[in-house]
């Protein structure tokens, strides 16, 4: 093959764009079923087994591991070439909008550092409009996705409890790993939250608390598929259970938690059916004269040259906003407003999660006997939404719920961990400072609400006509507006947290806001952006059908957060994974039937 020009004679069965949750799942499922897959990733390759800074200490890091522009979540955070900015790849905001877009340019994307919180959407969450008249319904029901939640949880390893609560589904028996025992602050919070009517139950996190049964699970997940059973069994045997140390957000070299790079990509590569190309910045999906997708064009970042690769099927999983960007940039004579955009809805109905938090200092937690508080690094317990009936009866003034993430106690001291002492002690130094540190360090609790945002007409992304990134690709411009539902919800969060802190005998830190605009996090800051290519049952009001297949281009599919019709308070990753699996089953079925 001559240098310098693309002469790929190979047509892949499928190109998957993006290697995070949705792309990793798509590449895995398609490849274990024998398809030849080209997996394109805009960032560099990355191997958590070699690169995760397990057990490293803040003092070994520059500036004690503090966050920076280049590493906003701290030096050791797994994110590579990302954060709120990506060098050379800007985005813009319309006047009055301050949307934040977190990206990670690396194999596995944001799954390398994510919070591992793995909550299922419930029955109400798929039919929100039917329930309260707002937003839109999904073209599927909980029971359609429930088997995929079970299978996904078995595949990736999720710990959790067996509580059976309203719109908070339980997993089938034997699917989940046992949740780890609660920590002291979690138990104390539960004791004082229960009388307020706030339930505190085991959290669901994509972390294994025991090893997976590599002999039976692969057979259960891939009946009759020897290749899948082999590669998955090998993968499961290479994973260890959590050893309750070192933060998940740095990645996990023992593969105890879910990362696309430890759980999905290795078995996908082991099939021999996947070619993986990192540093490949996809700019458009190309179409043939019949209007079918026939490949993608991407920039090879290492050589700064343009490439074209061909496939029978294109699966976009570049993240909700990036997928919309690719489609909007895929303009042709046949599709002048971008691909799969006959409805004009690509980029529309962008959603994030409502976020508001508050903390408190709890005298009961002072001077506790030293004990290990690290645990699984994420939450062992959480509080699911509990006011469904009051809300439906119109008593709350906002339409959708939130769950509460919380914690407290003695974490490993890091940069700034003791800064609170100055005000608490009114300027202590010397012996008094050291005594205060011994007494107060670890006596704080924190609460973060994560609530449902209702999609609206004013929150969307589009191409900025004036700005391109360093690869020459037009960038996204964001528009954002919260409705009163979200603003009132954020106020309710802070008031609830203050009540819990006071019930614990503690002192609330900071101001409990009555103005939702002051309580709520900025759009995008919770890093749960979804929507932009919503599913539906009508091609006029949706971009994708009930199988995440483009209405306009039948061999084009989307498996990231873009298809989401609503954004329940449940963190989206588990649903992205389950939905991606369901979509790949549909792709295989359609191929089998020669429909695509």
């Amino acid at each position, binding site marked *: 093959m001559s240098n310098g020009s693309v002469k790929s004679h190979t047509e892949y069965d499928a190109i998957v764009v993006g290697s995070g949750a949705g792309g990793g799942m798509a590449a895995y499922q398609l490849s274990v079923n024998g398809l030849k897959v080209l997996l394109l990733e805009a960032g560099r390759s990355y191997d958590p087994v070699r690169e995760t800074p397990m057990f490293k200490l803040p003092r070994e890091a520059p500036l004690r591991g503090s966050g920076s522009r280049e590493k906003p979540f701290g030096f050791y955070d797994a994110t590579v070439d990302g954060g709120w900015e990506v060098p050379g790849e800007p985005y813009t905001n319309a006047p009055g909008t301050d949307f934040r877009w977190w990206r990670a340019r690396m194999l596995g994307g944001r799954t390398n550092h994510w919070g591992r919180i793995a909550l299922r959407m419930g029955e109400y969450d798929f039919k929100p409009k039917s329930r309260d008249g707002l937003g839109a319904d999904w073209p599927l029901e909980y029971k359609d996705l429930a088997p995929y939640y079970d299978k996904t949880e078995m595949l990736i390893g999720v710990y959790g409890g067996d509580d059976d609560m309203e719109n908070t589904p339980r997993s089938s028996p034997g699917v989940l790993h046992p949740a780890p025992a609660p920590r002291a602050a979690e138990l104390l919070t539960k004791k004082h939250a229960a009388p307020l009517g706030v339930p505190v139950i085991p959290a669901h996190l994509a972390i294994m608390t025991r090893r997976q049964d590599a002999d039976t699970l692969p057979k259960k997940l891939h009946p009759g598929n020897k290749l899948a059973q082999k590669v998955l069994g090998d993968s499961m045997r290479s994973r260890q259970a959590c050893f309750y140390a070192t933060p998940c957000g740095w990645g996990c070299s023992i593969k105890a938690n879910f990362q696309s790079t430890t759980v999905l990509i290795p078995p996908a590569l082991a099939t021999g059916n996947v070619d993986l190309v990192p540093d490949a910045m996809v700019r458009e999906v190309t179409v043939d004269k019949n209007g079918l997708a026939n490949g993608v064009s991407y920039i090879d970042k290492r050589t700064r040259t343009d490439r074209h690769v061909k496939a029978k099927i294109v699966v976009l999983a570049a993240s909700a906003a990036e997928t919309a960007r690719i489609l909007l940039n895929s303009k042709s004579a046949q599709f002048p407003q971008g691909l799969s955009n006959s409805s004009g809805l690509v980029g529309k109905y962008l959603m994030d999660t409502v976020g508001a938090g508050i903390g408190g200092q709890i005298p009961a937690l002072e001077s506790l006997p030293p004990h290990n508080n690290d645990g699984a690094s994420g939450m062992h317990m959480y509080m699911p939404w509990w006011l469904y009936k009051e809300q439906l009866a119109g008593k709350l003034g906002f339409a959708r719920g939130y769950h509460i993430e919380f914690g407290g106690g003695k974490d490993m001291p890091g940069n700034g961990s003791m*800064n609170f002492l100055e005000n608490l002690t009114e300027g202590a130094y010397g012996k008094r400072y050291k005594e205060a540190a011994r007494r107060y360090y670890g006596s704080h609790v924190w609460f973060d609400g994560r609530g449902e945002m209702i999609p609206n007409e004013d929150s969307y992304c589009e191409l900025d006509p004036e700005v391109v990134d360093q690869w020459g690709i037009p960038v996204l411009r964001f528009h954002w507006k919260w409705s009163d539902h979200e603003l009132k919800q954020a106020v309710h969060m802070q008031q609830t947290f203050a009540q819990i802190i006071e019930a614990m005998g503690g002192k609330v830190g900071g101001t409990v806001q009555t103005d939702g605009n002051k309580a709520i996090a900025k759009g995008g800051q919770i890093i749960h952006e979804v929507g932009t290519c919503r599913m539906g049952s009508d091609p006029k009001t949706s971009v994708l059908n009930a199988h995440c297949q483009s209405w306009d281009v039948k061999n084009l599919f989307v498996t990231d957060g873009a298809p989401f019709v609503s954004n329940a308070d449940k963190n989206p990753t588990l649903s992205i994974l389950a939905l991606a699996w369901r979509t790949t089953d549909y792709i295989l079925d359609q191929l089998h039937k020669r429909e695509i």
Partner: protein
Amino acid sequence: MTQLDEDDGGTAMDAGATSGEGAVNGVNRRDALKAIASAAAITMIGAEASAQGTPKPAAATAPAAQAPVQITRGPRGDAWDPDLIHPKSDWPRKLTASELATLAALCDVIIPADAKSPSASSQGAHHYINEHVSAPGAGYERDLVRVRGGVSWLNVESERRFAKTFVKLSASQKTTICDDICYAPKAKEEFKAGARFFSLVRNLTATAYYTTDAGMKDVGYVGNVASMKWELPPKAVLDKLGL
């Protein structure tokens, strides 16, 4: 189902074989070369293959028999993609020996040795302050001015009150000055700037100290150890909490 063209094992990746930039670093070269020997060799090895003059792969082997190919390029080593296993904070330090001596003395006023744990300077807190104020970035440069100015102010104030530099003051003389600057909201007008300086140094000293083994032990942090099981907190903790 498409098969990889046997004469074109590299497919898309050969297109990347033009630069010879050595984008694959040496650590992974062996993996890369190994990968070339197998059929569905992965794109990123393209540049390496070209640079090394490695012939392109011959015929495809049975794909399913292949081991997964490690494709790590590894960290670039800059601020966006630092080597997390071998961290570096190698920017030039800006404070003078004399400034460091004053800071060491102040660190030990803030966190002195006692029966339970050592002093801040013995754990290098003043060197951490130097790392902080010498770091690149506008915020750190502001802190450099505040620390430098504060050290000068502290010595001038020491000379004015006791005719000695700060390091030569007795413990009670140091306390006399620090009492005036230890809490900005209550500091007199003429000590507000000194209080801002003290606040910064106290926080930096505490960050430095409590991230050392001695400091973590002092506040009873006992985690970061691997354990096969996770259990409820010890009975003494549950009893104290009434749980």
